[in-house]
């Protein structure tokens, strides 16, 4: 499981799988790209689908590969932790190793080592031990442990996530015990439901001069009318309510409540949710097919004379039959006539979109990256080294220097302590 080849094969396999997910249009993240490819090369798309390459990261093969990587990472971390513990706290003697230098002036050498921030760390057998940057020995272990924790948390999140999107109009509410239909549902996720009524009280966007959104704030009322709690949610300013985090999505606009009256006396009541036009040149549209075969095309547009994007945009209605414009009017009063059809505006309110998700603590992820940071700094910034001194039966002192990694970067220190040439070995 832990052979070098296995580890490299697993990392490479993961890399190739992710690369495939980046290069081949994916069903979830790039449906338009997949459709375009289908139109150009249907046989290729059929082959990709048969191989599961249109949804690489949600295949069982990918999950299996990820599980193997995690297992290998776990075993490697365990091995490294044991190795670093042994090196730090239960080191062996170096007597059988080569590379010992003859020391002429032991007090002088110890003074030089102290100046270079080596500190005496006790004795092992007949050897005195001097260490520099010993905690950097733990770098690889911490780095791998951090990745292990982060990956475990990521998998746990995927398995237990329940997440949903909800569109509400000002004044509209979701009842208590409403079981929100979750769009993303992990294998171990339980149903996402509200414990108390949730009402959207107001939607307040703020805009930059060019019409782009600066911030979107909504006020939500929680609880029944007798005892309501007010909550303000904004983009990147989510709030947690009893384990469910409420996010403010960036999509919002106007809901127009319309009644369309036909010549035969029948009426059609319709709620039209149009997105907020972002700037003067960016109108938004919605089509409503009518019973007589014509289409009511609605347009929400910012007037070029608008002083502020917070002003209400113009609401334009056009009736089309077989692609030809039958009538068009801007809604400046409560009722407009489009040829023989009358449209009445019963109300206009803002709508906004929310994401509801079961709250997960980010502490494990934070702990994971904190360990990665500590581990990487210890592993690549500082070089742990050690000097052992021992005196043989003739009274001669011997010293051996070892850098646990990147020895070439600190060899001038060894040369400063013992000279560039080995004086001998025992």
């Amino acid at each position, binding site marked *: 499981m832990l052979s070098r080849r296995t580890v490299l094969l697993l990392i490479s396999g993961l890399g190739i799988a992710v690369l495939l997910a980046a290069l081949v249009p994916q069903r979830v993240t790039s449906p338009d790209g997949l459709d375009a490819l289908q139109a150009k090369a249907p046989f290729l798309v059929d082959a990709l689908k048969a191989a599961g390459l249109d949804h690489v990261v949600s295949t069982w093969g990918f999950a299996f590969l990820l599980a193997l990587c995690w297992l290998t990472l776990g075993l490697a971390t365990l091995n490294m932790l044991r190795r670093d513990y042994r090196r730090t706290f239960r080191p062996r003697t170096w007597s059988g190793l080569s590379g010992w230098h003859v020391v002429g002036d032991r007090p002088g050498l110890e003074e030089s080592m102290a100046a270079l921030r080596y500190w005496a760390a006790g004795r092992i057998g007949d050897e005195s031990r001097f260490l520099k940057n010993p905690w950097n020995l733990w770098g690889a272990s911490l780095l791998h442990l951090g990745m292990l924790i982060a990956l475990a948390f990521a998998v746990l999140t995927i398995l237990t996530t329940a997440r949903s999107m909800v569109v509400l109009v000002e004044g509209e509410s979701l009842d208590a015990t409403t079981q929100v239909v979750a769009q*993303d549902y992990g294998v171990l996720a339980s149903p996402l439901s509200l414990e108390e009524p949730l009402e959207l009280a107001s939607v307040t966007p703020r805009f930059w001069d060019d019409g782009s959104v600066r*911030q979107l704030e909504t006020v939500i009322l929680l609880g029944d009318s007798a005892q309501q709690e007010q909550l303000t949610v*904004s983009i990147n300013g989510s709030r947690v309510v009893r384990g469910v985090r409420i996010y403010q999505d960036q999509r919002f606009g106007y809901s127009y409540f319309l009644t369309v009256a036909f010549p035969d006396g029948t009426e059609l009541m319709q709620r039209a949710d149009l997105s907020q036009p972002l700037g003067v040149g960016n109108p938004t549209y919605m089509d409503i097919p009518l019973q007589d075969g014509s289409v009511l095309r609605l347009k929400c547009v910012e007037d070029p004379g608008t002083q502020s994007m917070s002003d209400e945009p113009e609401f334009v209605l056009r009736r089309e039959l077989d692609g030809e414009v039958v009538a068009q009017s801007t809604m400046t009063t409560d009722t407009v006539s489009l040829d023989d059809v009358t449209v009445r505006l019963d109300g206009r309110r803002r709508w906004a979109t929310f994401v509801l998700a079961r709250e997960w603590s980010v502490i494990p992820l934070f702990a994971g990256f904190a360990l990665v940071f500590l581990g990487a700094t210890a592993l690549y910034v500082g070089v742990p080294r050690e000097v052992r001194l021992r005196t043989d039966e003739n009274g001669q002192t011997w010293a051996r220097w070892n850098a646990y990694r990147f020895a070439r970067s600190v060899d001038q220190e060894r040369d400063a302590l013992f000279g560039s040439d080995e004086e001998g070995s025992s």
Partner: protein
Amino acid sequence: MSAFLLQAETRVHVVAIVLYALAAMMLIGGRFLRRPGLVRWAGNVVPLAIGVHALALGARWAGSGHGPYVTKYEMLSAYAFVTAVMFALIVYRRDRLQVLGMIVYPVVFLMMALGLYTGAEVHNLPPTFSGIWLVIHVCFYVLAFATAVIALSSAALILRGKDLELEATGRFQSLESLDDISYRFGGLAFAFWGIGMLTGSIWAYYSWGRFWGWDPVETWSLVTWLAFGIYLHVRRFYAWEGKRAALLLIVCVALALFSLFGTSILSDSLHAVYFQ
């Protein structure tokens, strides 16, 4: 006031480019013409260039009302600045590594010049651009880039081989220790990149309600991180070093560049709204 600051900033930015270019020319010229005086002068010009660059970034920050992390111009300038500062700090501690400036300074001034080419207009801050996680996310990617550039510089000099060592670096730095520098900074780039991804996922969680969405930017970022992982493991397991390892590192840095500056312009990316 804002308009004045932004106008002045572009000019100061150009002055910083010229100073970095001057430092690069002095360093390269000094090495190859064996004129130590020029090399010393390069060392004096760099702090001045960094100071002027800091002034430009400060003016940009004050003028635009937000940090330099929205447009490509701002990002390239911020990446270049951190790279230059990090390299200056390294050289301050180990002046033998000044030879890496032959690659680092040209990269820095080319990035800044490229930033000018992409346009210095100020863009408004999108509403998702807030919070401590965004700051940490951006900082770690900038650090990852800076460390990757320093690793790349070592790799590039290793690829030039012994000739360069004799002519220019022999007295200052051996190829073996350049190889260690490349390894260590490649390792730091891997770790910082990983932390950048993790903190980015926390930011995404607070902004969009999900940690990871396999967006092209996220996917290519993961590909880059895994490539760095392969680089570190072949070095560790199979003792790859020298030109072979240097070539692999250059591939990793190329992937990093594509992830940082190439993928965000893909139209189907959620990140496409940023870095315009």
